[in-house]
């Protein structure tokens, strides 16, 4: 773990034990970036989203971020959806340039990219609530964590997810393929 130190460092050397917020950031940053990436499809944009979400979380929760795990996830998805909806008419950016655990063949990469871009386009057309449930679930969140994050009973998550998947498929069938 790198911490800047010495003369000219932008801030004092970090103390041996991280602050509660830094601990929170390190625990949840990767998950928040991945959720944003699944919506925007661009690693740099996803990290921009995560940066602003954690900055907002710092202002909002300060030194007591324990209860913010669900909040930063939902904020990440909402912000990413907002970004995509705003960009959709201006330009397309479908290249996902983050590190991958394996290197697919060029043909596989093209197919994956197109399939992923198509589902992201459909996702952006859904109501925010539905899109959020989908992104959280396919981002690996449990039903319990989704329920906590969006403030519903855990018994409702399956129904919401089912409806969101159905709506997503209809949207993908309805719109022209990208």
């Amino acid at each position, binding site marked *: *773990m*790198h*911490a800047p130190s010495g003369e000219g460092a*932008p*801030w004092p050397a970090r103390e041996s034990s991280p602050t509660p917020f830094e601990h929170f*950031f*390190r625990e949840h*940053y*990767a998950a928040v*970036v*991945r959720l944003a*990436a*699944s919506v925007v499809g661009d*690693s740099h944009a996803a*990290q921009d*989203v*995560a*940066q*602003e979400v954690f*900055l907002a979380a*710092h202002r909002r929760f300060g030194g007591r971020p324990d209860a913010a795990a669900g*909040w930063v996830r939902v*904020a990440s998805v*909402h*912000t990413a*959806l*907002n*970004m995509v909806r705003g960009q959709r008419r201006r330009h397309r950016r479908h290249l*996902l340039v*983050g590190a*991958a655990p394996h290197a697919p063949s060029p043909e596989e990469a093209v197919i*994956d990219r197109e399939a*992923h871009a198509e*589902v992201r386009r459909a996702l952006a057309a859904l*109501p*925010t*609530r*539905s899109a959020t449930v989908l992104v959280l*679930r*396919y981002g*690996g969140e*449990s*039903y319990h964590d989704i329920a906590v994050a*969006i*403030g*519903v*009973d855990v*018994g*409702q*998550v*399956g*129904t*919401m*997810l*089912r*409806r*969101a*998947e159905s709506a*997503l*498929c209809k949207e993908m069938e309805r719109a022209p393929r990208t």
Partner: protein
Amino acid sequence: MRHAPDGTLRRLEDEPLAVPDAVADHVAGCRRCGERRRRLDADTAMASRLASGPRLVPDIDAAWERLRRAIDGRPEDAPAGSPPVAVVVPGRTRRVVRWSWRTGVLAGAGALVLAGAGTAAALSNVFAPDRVAPVAVTPGDLGTVAQLMDVDGGHVPGGFPTPDGSRTVPFGTITWSSTSAARTYDSAAAASAAAGIPVRLASHLPPGVGAPTGFLVQPRVSATVTFGAGAGDLAGRSVVLGVGPGVLAEYGATDQGAGLPTLGVLTMARPTASSADTTLARIEAFLLSRPDVPPQLAEEVRLLGDLRTVLPVPTPTGTEARSVSVGGDQGVLVADASGAASGVIWEDRGGLLHVVAGIVDAQEVLGVADQIG
């Protein structure tokens, strides 16, 4: 055993251990549930493309340094052309208010009190709205109205108790009366006959909304407000408010495990007010000048214009309200900012007020309303 609802079938795919064994055993041996599960799998396979992208491994140290700079007020230089990212903060969790006659009467009576009474003609209808309009309110505003009307607390859950007797309120007395007690019926036809008003229901419901669980009939409730000595020029004058009769159809969920009503459809005669000895302008001026009426709420009501024909629709802070057309009639759509819940209210040309609301999005609630309107 009952067939498993869609939500449970869906969870069976992801978290089978969270589904009771009895339900899982039923699904395993049930042909109908099996077919539904296969259809569900097709959608799931399509949606799973969401998880198909490369798994990012971000540089957390670099990200933390970047955030530290921003927290310290020394943000990096943004690349040329890089648009700012505006964080969309999740909406605060809002509980969906269980529809009840207390809620309806509170809103209706509050609107009536705020709207006041009208012309000086003897015992004429001074408030008979033929259109609806949104009024932004806060929970505090509703509490103020509840206190003014003395209808807050201690009532029967899920239904308004048959109001009776007189109560002292800050500006005088309110005498409640009704023809009979509220009662729940098993069918829309029986409820319609009991209430004496036609009840129309939607034949196509949004996904997740189950069958009606009951039809609550509330007979007409009247309240005579007599202004007391503290009401200045209005002392000794009175206005008669009327709400109902009405029928509330309450719908359950297809997922029985959810345990919550998903949709409510209210049909009721429009509220009215009449007076023999006072005017709308005088009541409005008195009520809106009271120190316990929040200035912002008073301003919202004043902006409505002619209160004799407008029913104010309370729209809580954080919701979005917009004008819509339902069957050619003007209505107000109120939607939770998160999209979790929404409702629409309109008055038809026959003088019936309709409300459709629940845990559905705006398009779905309008879809139900269009079948009724």
